């Protein structure tokens, strides 16, 4: 092999073809040289083989997934910043990651669709209406003061911490066939009627926020910021959880996606904290399951791409190219079809059928059968999406997944709850 291998004729042709069909152009540098591989660190849920295949076709980029669990993503970024080229992580972990100085601010000028990114991130608004910003709301951590800054800017700057990949609004999942009272409030999670049939998730920072939603729903107490509790607030919340646990309210606490699916599908639980794709999976097994909108609103989360500070040269160019491609529509449509929301809605819309868009984003009844990205039937014609349209769902966000200032104390109290 010589030192500067020239691309084969076939690769060139393929590249040209890709140029012709890809709506976004302007990254020929990636194609001209030796193929680049990007090591993509993130949770398995977001790492789709279809996306990797498509980007290979379109850009000639090879994506090498490093799938780990959520907490592990943060740990890797902080402790092994050279083990990846691109990270897909949740916004709340920025509070831990940024001070380590391992992430670089991304140049907004190099992100072609930067100004088209959903206002959920840039302004904390949906359809011009402010949404809940308790916890680590993305708008609080979206901009950085400078490329190498370890500080978040409260206002728009040219430097972005993470470019959004997916986000969603979480609520409680219920088994409508086994729950015979109307569930409209978070407080039903601790309703003794569901004794021994409720579950929350055993991820302290998220579990405690679900508990906080319950506390506020009962009207006992209103938090200053559910996503950043004071020590007495933590004590109060944990106390409520311990009482419920001792009273036998919980069947189990779940830790990962599959556990939550199994609990619900087997009827071990009838009401529990849940993630949207888990609800879809329960339904796919033929078991009725509703992602129940609640009047107090949703607990939202968002994750996005970050790049390590050490990335440079062609790899850096490739990372930007990949992110630009990701925002350009195909990937957005793919994610929307899974029930997530994508960063740039316009481009995603252009890649979806109108009836799909109407079902997923506008809350309308499905005109035809709704298929997932893999072609599996998700909903029959006539069904509507739980929680309604994008504006209804994201517009009702009450708080965001967060890392609290009193995180250490909170974790200790959570362990106390588990041991109780």
């Amino acid at each position: 092999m010589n030192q500067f291998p020239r691309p084969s004729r076939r690769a060139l042709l393929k590249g040209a073809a890709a140029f012709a069909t890809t709506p976004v152009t302007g990254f020929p540098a990636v194609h001209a040289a030796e193929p680049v591989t990007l090591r993509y660190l993130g949770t398995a849920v977001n790492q789709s083989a279809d996306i990797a295949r498509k980007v290979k076709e379109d850009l000639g980029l090879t994506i090498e997934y490093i799938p780990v669990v959520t907490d592990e993503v943060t740990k890797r970024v902080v402790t092994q910043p050279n083990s990846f080229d691109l990270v897909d992580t949740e916004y709340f972990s920025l509070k831990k990651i940024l001070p380590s100085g391992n992430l670089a601010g991304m140049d907004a000028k190099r992100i072609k669709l930067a100004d088209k990114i959903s206002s959920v991130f840039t302004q904390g608004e949906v359809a011009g209406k402010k949404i809940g910003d308790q916890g680590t709301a993305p708008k609080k951590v979206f901009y950085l003061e400078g490329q190498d800054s370890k500080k978040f800017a409260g206002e728009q700057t040219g430097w972005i911490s993470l470019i959004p990949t997916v986000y969603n609004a979480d609520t409680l999942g219920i088994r409508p066939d086994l729950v015979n009272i109307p569930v409209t409030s978070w407080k039903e999670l601790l309703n003794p009627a569901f004794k021994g049939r409720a579950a929350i998730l055993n991820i302290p920072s998220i579990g405690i926020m679900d508990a906080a939603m319950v506390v506020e729903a009962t009207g006992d107490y209103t938090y200053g910021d559910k996503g950043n509790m004071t020590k007495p607030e933590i004590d109060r919340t944990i106390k409520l959880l311990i009482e419920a646990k001792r009273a036998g309210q919980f069947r189990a606490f779940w830790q990962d996606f599959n556990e939550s699916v199994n609990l619900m599908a087997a009827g071990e639980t009838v009401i529990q904290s849940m993630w949207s794709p888990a609800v879809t999976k329960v339904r796919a097994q033929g078991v009725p399951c509703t992602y129940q909108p609640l009047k107090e609103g949703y607990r939202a989360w968002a994750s996005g791409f970050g790049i390590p500070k050490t990335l440079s040269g062609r790899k850096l160019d490739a990372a930007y190219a990949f992110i630009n491609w990701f925002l350009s529509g195909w990937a957005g449509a793919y994610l929307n079809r899974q029930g997530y929301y994508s960063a740039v809605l316009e481009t995603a819309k252009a890649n979806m059928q109108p009836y799909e868009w109407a079902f997923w984003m506008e809350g309308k009844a499905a005109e035809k059968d709704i298929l997932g990205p893999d072609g599996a039937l998700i909903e029959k014609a006539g069904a509507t999406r739980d929680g309604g349209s994008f504006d209804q769902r994201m517009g009702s966000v009450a708080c965001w997944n967060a890392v609290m200032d009193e995180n250490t104390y909170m974790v200790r109290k959570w362990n106390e709850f588990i041991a109780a």
Partner: protein
Amino acid sequence: MNDLALSRLAEAAASPAPSGRRRRRALAYLQAAPLAFVFLVFLVVPLVLTGIVSLWEYNEYAIVPALTLQNYADVFDGCLSADLCTTVRTYLSTLKFVALTLAITLPLGFAIAYFLAFHIRSNTVRMGLFLLCTIPFWTSNVIRMISWIPLLGRNGLVNDTLRGLGLIREPIEGLLYSDFAVVLAFVHLDTVFMIVPIFNSLARIDRRLIEAARDCGASGAQTLWNVVLPLAKPGIAIGAIFVVTLVMGDFVTVGVMGGQQIASVGKVIQVQMAYLQFPAAAANAMVLLAAVLLMILGLTRMIDLRRVL
């Protein structure tokens, strides 16, 4: 090294001359060196590092070299008050599982080992039965985790069968996500660790000792109690050490079978690791290590391990 060289070395080692003795000692050290090196690199060094880190300070995103006992103070926070603190509670819960698991795996493991050692004549059959004992390990933890629900769940096989037989009206909730479920899973997984060392001890018992006991008028039970059991003690102790260590350090089984509702020391450490609180996790690990070592020390007082191995 070929056989010839080895035998020459052995000859040299056997030579009683002072220089030979020195060479023999050097050879012994040389032979122990690889294992010692592995121990040093993979056990001693990490342990020392863990010990050091447990004395450091930390914040959300970094650990700071310092010398503080705060992490240990946090571990035992509130333990001096009348109410049991989290750590004591967690250890008590774990110790309860150790005791229950031992109480079941020991007689069960002994019975199976006894059967394999004394009642199975054919080596092939014995190997086959040994393989049967390892069946729980043929599947991954994930598969096992998933398959418990259809078996023990509210609408699982056991409850359905009992209801079908008319023995119960309402499903027994405690079959899954309970102490019972945790102990069941531990017994399921750990009995084989009891069987193997006990079998090893039993296999070494000279069959003539059993005949001698019978000759002295001992009944089957008396022989078991007065001859077999005392001679199986080393195997029992080693098996108990396995079980104690496995149960003390476990958090996966407790988590899955307890529906994450039951605390375990390992889980506490895992959560702290996940939240990047390494020094706190290290302090907890050191306390756990000390607790396990104390228990093993207690067990080894029962036997002279070196005589056995």
